[in-house]
């Protein structure tokens, strides 16, 4: 099926009233999640995952996807008005966005970030549409050895791009791989690391792990400090539509931001956070007046906001075409699809065109909804910012508890969730990178399966990974990455790309 036919199918699916409704719910929830600091899209998507069990998989994924890209819109509002990133991918927007607001230009800053997000989001979805089918076609040629090598490359890339040092994020990847092995061995039925606990025989579920690591640990880190009340800039928000001068300034910024974001989004571990940082760095370098950056330059808002939205679209590519998630949010979405009985991968476009094209088309629709939600209704979100943390955090904790319980109606899942909350809190303290763990945790069992299948196919020849060209390319790339991070000269370069971020 070519892209045009696919798009037609997509329109039929995305414009069904139910799907429009859930797309809208997703966008609203996403914006809210983005606006409220201390609540990231990963935690919320896993929180709402059990709710989607009662929907059909298409509506469910449309809603969850809406939360993800919606959060990218909302995050900038908090950055601009409060100087606190509402969401990790909007950290850089604080630098110039808040300064613009201080100068009384809160309106154009908010307007530019919403319109920039819209343009980048829409272009990102178009690129996603154009690039997915050929990639899936290519992926059809992949056998188990290629998948295995690709996942090795993915994990290395993740460690390479992560915010903490490579040795730390590799340690976390190791821990994730280990967690993936807990439970009965698929092939032999041997219990591994179950400590004779019946809850552990089925393995550890993704949802309580993610909710603990991203939801509860965030609350714990916020509570340990003596909370100061957030100060929202008291300013009149006017002139939401940026001036002609502003537009001329950001014309190429938007193009560059979109492209950087989209391609970094595809890479495992790249994602929206790094994309926004990279775009800011590039804009500063391309600018004729780099000294204005940090004092309220509109390019410093437009670039990163375009980049994080384009990255959110790009991240769907590896998940939908290869079945390999690029970041923690995609890992949860992948989990959601599998629970619904849909196996993402190269066959998805052919087997479930309604789902594939429906979800992508809904992202166009969602971007239009988000533009309206974020421009005329901006006042509403500013009001949401005034909700005190004393009300928010009990709700976050409660949703995490109910969410992990409702997955299997198992009380011990709540227990697991709290334990991972404590563990995640310690990770934050000691600066270990949680997304590496989550991704390795999801990829681990897939890697084990593809390793065994490869060896079965090759009659137990362990060198099969080096005998197939595509697989060799992936492995060589992984080795180069590891080596480059060890070599001192290149290490410096990496450190300038990767800016210290908190998740």
């Amino acid at each position, binding site marked *: 099926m070519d892209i045009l036919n696919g798009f037609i199918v997509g329109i039929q699916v995305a414009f069904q009233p139910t799907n429009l409704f859930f797309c809208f719910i997703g966008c609203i929830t996403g914006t809210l999640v983005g606006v409220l600091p201390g609540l990231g899209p990963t935690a919320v998507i896993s929180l709402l995952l059990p709710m989607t069990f009662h929907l059909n998989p298409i509506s469910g994924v449309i809603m969850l996807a809406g939360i993800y890209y919606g959060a990218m819109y909302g995050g900038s509002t908090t950055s601009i008005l409060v100087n606190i990133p509402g969401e990790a991918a909007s950290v850089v927007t604080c630098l110039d966005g808040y300064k613009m607001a201080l100068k009384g230009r809160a309106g154009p800053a908010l307007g530019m970030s919403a319109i920039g997000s819209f343009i980048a989001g829409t272009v990102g979805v178009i690129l996603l549409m154009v690039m997915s089918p050929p990639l899936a076609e290519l992926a059809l040629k992949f056998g188990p050895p290629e998948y295995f090598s690709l996942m090795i490359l993915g994990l290395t890339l993740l460690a390479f791009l992560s915010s903490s040092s490579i040795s730390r994020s*590799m340690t976390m990847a*190791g*821990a994730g791989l280990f967690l993936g092995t807990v439970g009965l061995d698929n092939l032999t039925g041997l219990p591994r690391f179950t400590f004779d606990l019946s809850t552990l025989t089925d393995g550890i579920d993704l949802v309580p792990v993610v909710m603990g690591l991203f939801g509860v640990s965030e609350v714990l880190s916020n509570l340990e400090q003596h909370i100061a009340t957030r100060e929202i800039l008291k300013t009149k928000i006017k002139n939401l539509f940026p001036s002609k001068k502003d537009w001329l300034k950001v014309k190429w910024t938007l193009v560059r931001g979109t492209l950087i974001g989209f391609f970094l989004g595809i890479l495992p571990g790249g994602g929206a956070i790094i994309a926004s940082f990279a775009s800011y760095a590039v804009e500063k370098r391309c600018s004729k007046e780099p000294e204005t950056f940090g004092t309220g330059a509109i390019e410093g808002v437009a670039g990163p906001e375009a980049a994080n939205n384009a990255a959110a679209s790009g991240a769907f590519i590896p998940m939908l075409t290869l079945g390999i998630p690029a970041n923690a949010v995609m890992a949860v979405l992948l989990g959601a699809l599998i629970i619904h009985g849909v196996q993402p991968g190269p066959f998805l476009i052919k087997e479930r065109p309604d789902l594939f094209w429906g979800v992508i088309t809904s992202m166009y629709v969602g971007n239009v909804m988000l533009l309206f939600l974020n421009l005329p209704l901006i006042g509403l979100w500013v009001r949401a910012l005034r909700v*005190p943390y004393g*009300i928010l955090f009990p709700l976050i904790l409660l949703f995490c508890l109910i969410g992990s*319980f409702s997955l299997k109606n198992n*009380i011990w899942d709540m227990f697991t969730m709290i334990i991972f909350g404590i563990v995640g809190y310690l990770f934050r303290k*000691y600066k270990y990178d949680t997304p590496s763990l989550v991704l390795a945790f999801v990829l681990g069992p897939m890697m084990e399966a593809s*390793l065994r299948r490869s060896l079965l196919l090759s009659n137990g020849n362990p060198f099969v990974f080096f005998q197939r060209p595509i697989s060799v390319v992936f492995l060589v790339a992984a080795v180069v990455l590891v080596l480059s991070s060890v070599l001192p000269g290149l290490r410096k370069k990496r450190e300038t790309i990767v800016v210290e971020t908190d998740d």
Partner: protein
Amino acid sequence: MRKHDLISSIVWFIMGLSILLSSISFGLGTLSVPGPGFMSFLAGAIICVFSAITFLGALFSKSKEAAVHLWAKLNYFKLVSVLVLLFAYVFLIDTLGFIISTLLLVFLLMRFLGSLGWFQSLLGAILTTTCCYFIFDLWLRTSLPKGVITSWIF
């Protein structure tokens, strides 16, 4: 961060080593036919190697940054009480049932850790519990625990 890196990497190394050793008992298999312990052995090995690198890096680090106090000036009271409340919730939900334990949890969190007023906290707890009960139990049919006490009454 140096001292903390040394501590955290030692903890990781010990964990990696114990994973590695227990994997051997599951059976590693051969390179041609990996056994059930192969993957976790690999995971343990990765943890050991990279925590050792972190350890060495911190040991020989020459940076003269000021000592970072991770555990100073924290609000321990809040941290510990949240955890106690969460664990209590999990252990009591089967006996007290969803409604009573959630009312208690949300009320205590809002009143004593979120510093809201008595009335606000009470209202918050009742509203939250009611909404959750309607959404999760009645609409999504999650069959939240009824609790021993509720079953006596009805």
